[in-house]
């Protein structure tokens, strides 16, 4: 009994340390971002540019736009995310920051969790801005499916962040990071790309959440699988 209690308190204190370290890392990342505004700005401007370029490519016919809007939004978001992840690891590799951070950590998965949260926050912010611009530029009413759209956005962005964060720390050690990240990231996230694009398209067409349960389940499963997988293999990724 006494032993059980001891191991329980040990577990509690270690999970407390874990949460503290996650929060500290997150605060560090967000503070840096707040001072430089480098990652968000580049992601946002890039996403807007992708949307504008697509607009020229497909023409301004409202009916065509309605058909491809979800695809364009997600392509813009995913590309912007690749850009953001690249910027984020660039900062970590300068002056060997990552090494120092890893030395200070009790459990290295804290880094994974903190990086994922930071990335999800940036992405959600970019997604909101892009969708807002989209609804204005192309006259698409998103208020009717606002809540459902949030669920799809959060599930999608979470999954992309798990995969993206894991691979961004792998490509940190490659010679050609800029090329390697999308090469690894895009084929692995095929399920998520399909599910998020078609779920969003269904919502814009006026369908309700119950019509897209299949896609939501797939996204949920993907998120859980990659969270677990990410935590399991993360140690091997950052091991020196």
């Amino acid at each position, binding site marked *: 009994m006494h032993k059980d209690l001891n191991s329980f308190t040990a577990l509690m204190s270690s999970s407390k340390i874990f949460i503290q370290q996650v929060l500290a890392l997150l605060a560090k990342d967000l503070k840096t971002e707040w001072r430089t505004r480098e990652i968000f700005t580049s992601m946002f401007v890039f996403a807007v540019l992708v949307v504008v370029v697509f607009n020229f490519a497909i023409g301004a016919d409202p009916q065509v736009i309605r058909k491809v809007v979800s695809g364009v939004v997600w392509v813009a978001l995913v590309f912007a995310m690749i850009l953001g992840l690249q910027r984020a690891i660039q900062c970590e590799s300068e002056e060997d920051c990552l090494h120092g951070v890893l030395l200070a950590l009790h459990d290295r998965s804290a880094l994974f969790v903190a990086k994922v949260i930071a990335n999800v926050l940036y992405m959600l912010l970019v997604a909101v801005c892009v969708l807002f611009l989209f609804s204005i530029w192309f006259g698409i009413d998103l208020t009717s499916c606002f809540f459902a759209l949030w669920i799809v956005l959060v599930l999608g962005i979470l999954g992309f962040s798990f*995969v993206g964060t*894991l691979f961004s720390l*792998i490509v940190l*050690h*490659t*010679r*050609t990071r800029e090329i*390697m990240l999308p*090469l*690894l990231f*895009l*084929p*692995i996230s*095929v*399920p*998520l790309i*399909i*599910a998020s694009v*078609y779920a969003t398209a269904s919502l814009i067409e006026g369908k309700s959440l119950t019509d897209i349960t*299949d*896609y939501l389940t*797939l996204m949920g*499963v*993907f998120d859980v*699988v*990659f969270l677990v*997988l990410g935590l399991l*293999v993360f140690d*091997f*990724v950052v*091991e020196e």
Partner: protein
Amino acid sequence: MLSRSAFTLWRMIHAVAMYVVVGLALWMIFVYVPSEKGQGLVQRIFYFHVSSTFTMSLAGLVAFVASIIYLWKKAPRWDNIAMSAVEIGTLFCALVLITGSIWARPIWGVWWTWDPPLTLTLVLWLIYVAYLMLRANVQDDTKRARFAAVLAIVGGVDIFLIYLSIRMWRTLHPKPIVIQEGGTTGLPPSMFWTLMVCFVAFLLLFFYLLRERVFLAQSRHDLEIIRQEIDDTLKG
């Protein structure tokens, strides 16, 4: 570990068996088996196509399992096996795509359709290629092995999700052409046996290539160590 002479003997037996069965398979495909009535000569590519699909999946499985063992045991041998399996898998995956296209053109009227099995094979090929490119781009030996193993495991788990998602995606879209459902159970005996011999031939070929490739990787590794030793002696 087998002794050197036993290893060579086993390798010889394997090679001879491989050549004999591959020869038999070729004879059966081009001489023994009759052409299918409806599709004609092009149907014979189906023996290569189906067997390559089998080998390609087997290569993925071998790479997945070897990568898990590598992360667990940290023995370079398992990394060599995973890498060799992916290299061979990439080759057979490309063969599946090419032979499939050659067959589809006269039968379906198109080189390519975004049908679930085709799309899945294409994505698998992209993951195989990403694996090889990742290996080519990491300089440190142990890091390269670790990252590659992580990618193989992630890809192995992901392939099921990819399959599910692609099926979901296709069912919502009309298929461009009607695809005949062909099961192996309906095959006449001569075709069935040709296919079985082809399976065995490709299986032997796969393991032969795997063995040779692993052997090559191992020899390279040994050579590197010897070079290092010579360098050290010369310096010291």
